[in-house]
């Protein structure tokens, strides 16, 4: 599990052994494979990119090609212990609705995203006067999958509006965990563990 992306490593650590997990935007199944191999997790995935799905299936994972914006409605309430959305929220058309589905389908949910209020991004925006292009968000404004940038404070405010409870939160700068204090300014990534109130 040492090769997992840092936000995935946190999620992998927190998921209970033997749980049923839906990984929304699972990519080529890296997290699912780690959960299966180290925690005996029954993992299912949803991924838009056909090539990634093929790779995940060829790893022996159960992955469906589909779109978080349109296909989550098909999953019954509480059908998974955890629903996971890692680095995908900012690419959805309606992050608010996707979030509702996550906490409906999973008894608990993990959401991770790049924090658009981190000081480097603020800096680039303020002094460069242009849409920030950073290591974490390397795309140009006109050709980016990230159509809904979000900050940690924006996300918390959405959770409040949607009556979603925070059960855990972790913040990262690069690969290193960092304290909650000033997370919105200092953290590059956030991981939240959520539950519907």
């Amino acid at each position, binding site marked *: 599990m040492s090769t997992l992306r840092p936000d995935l490593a946190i999620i992998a650590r927190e998921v209970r052994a033997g749980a049923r997990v839906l990984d929304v935007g699972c990519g080529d199944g890296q997290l699912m494979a780690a959960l299966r191999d180290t925690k005996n997790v029954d993992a299912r995935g949803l991924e838009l990119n056909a090539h990634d799905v093929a790779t995940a299936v060829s790893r*022996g994972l159960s992955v469906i090609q589909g779109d978080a914006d349109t296909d989550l409605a098909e999953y019954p309430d509480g059908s998974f212990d955890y629903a996971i959305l890692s680095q995908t929220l900012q690419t959805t058309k309606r992050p608010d609705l996707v979030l509702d589905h996550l906490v409906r389908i999973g008894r608990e949910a993990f959401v991770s995203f790049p924090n658009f209020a981190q000081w480097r991004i603020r800096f680039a925006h303020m002094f460069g006067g242009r849409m920030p292009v950073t290591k974490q968000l390397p795309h140009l404004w006109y050709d980016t999958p990230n159509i809904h940038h979000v900050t940690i404070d924006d996300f918390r405010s959405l959770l409040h509006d949607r009556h979603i409870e925070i059960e855990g939160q972790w913040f990262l700068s690069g690969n290193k965990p960092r304290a909650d204090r000033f997370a919105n300014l200092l953290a590059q990534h956030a991981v939240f563990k959520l539950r519907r109130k």
Partner: protein
Amino acid sequence: MQEDTRFGLDRKIRLLGPVRLDSGAEFAPVDIAYETYGALNADKSNAILICHALTGDQYVASTHPMTGKDGWWTRMVGAAKPIDPARHCIISINVMGSCMGSSGPASIDPTTGAAYAMGFPVITIPDMVRAQALLLDHLGIETLEAVVGGSMGGMQALSWAALYPERVKSAVVIASTARHSAQNIAFHEVGRQAIMADPRWNNGAYYGHEAPSSGLAVARMAAHITYLSEAGLTEKFGRRLQNRDAKSFGFDADFQVESYLRYQGLSFVDRFDANSYLYITRAMDYFDLAEPHDGVLAKAFARTKTRFCLISFDSDWLYPTAESRRIVHALNAAGAAVSFVELSSPFGHDAFLLEAPEMNRIVDGFLRAGGK
């Protein structure tokens, strides 16, 4: 060790049956023509059943005895392929109702000594599967590592999982559907009417006489269009003329696409029985896996432990991706382990029979993971 004659190429067996048909009738005895490739392992856990499409047959990976052509799915089945006789015991069965050795309308009814013709019972896809299960009993195979099929073969794979969930560990369903749509039925009806409008059809009693080849050829031509895509046809033929510089202002096959379709029709009648075409298209039209479950497809797979892998092709308008997704949603609702990918191909429904490296990669990985 004495060779087990139940296994090998070009096998045929008469089983006492009976097969209890969806119509309520019983059918016996049941002739089943099949082939096997590769050896069954000691714990009989490596059997893979390949199910063929409407006009397919048991010659999945061996030379067709009538056409002399290679097996119809040598891209998927063979040495170093996802389904490999070095690792799997592969079973390929001619479906009931067909005309390559299994019981069908052209078979001799032992009670009359004449061909069944239209006296053959109307069968369904599940009936075909029940007959296949009889053969597996005969072969001593209780559990299948996988059932694999494209098109009508996929319908059989789904039916296998629904009828005998404890006998199927994995199911691979490619370019298929859990029900025939109004459009599917409509195209089949055109084909059937073409056959029945041929005066030589004679209410099906043409055996020993000239077969209704014109009708069957037209049926095949209409069906063949549904196996291709508009883009594929345009790329292959466009509006190009066939062996001529100008339009003939007549009704010869001026266009290449006409000539191609005529050829497809004519070559088909040499290897297929018109009544079989009626019976099998009927079975496909009757297919709706949700129907016996109050229209709720998920109930057909309640508590299933079978793993599923579905693949569709974006240019397939016969069984479009939406139909595969419907199955996937039902399997999800049933809590089944299911994988699904829509692959890109310009070749329409027929894509599953053609070179598709991504399809092979998926099927290979899926089967290997299930074999563990």
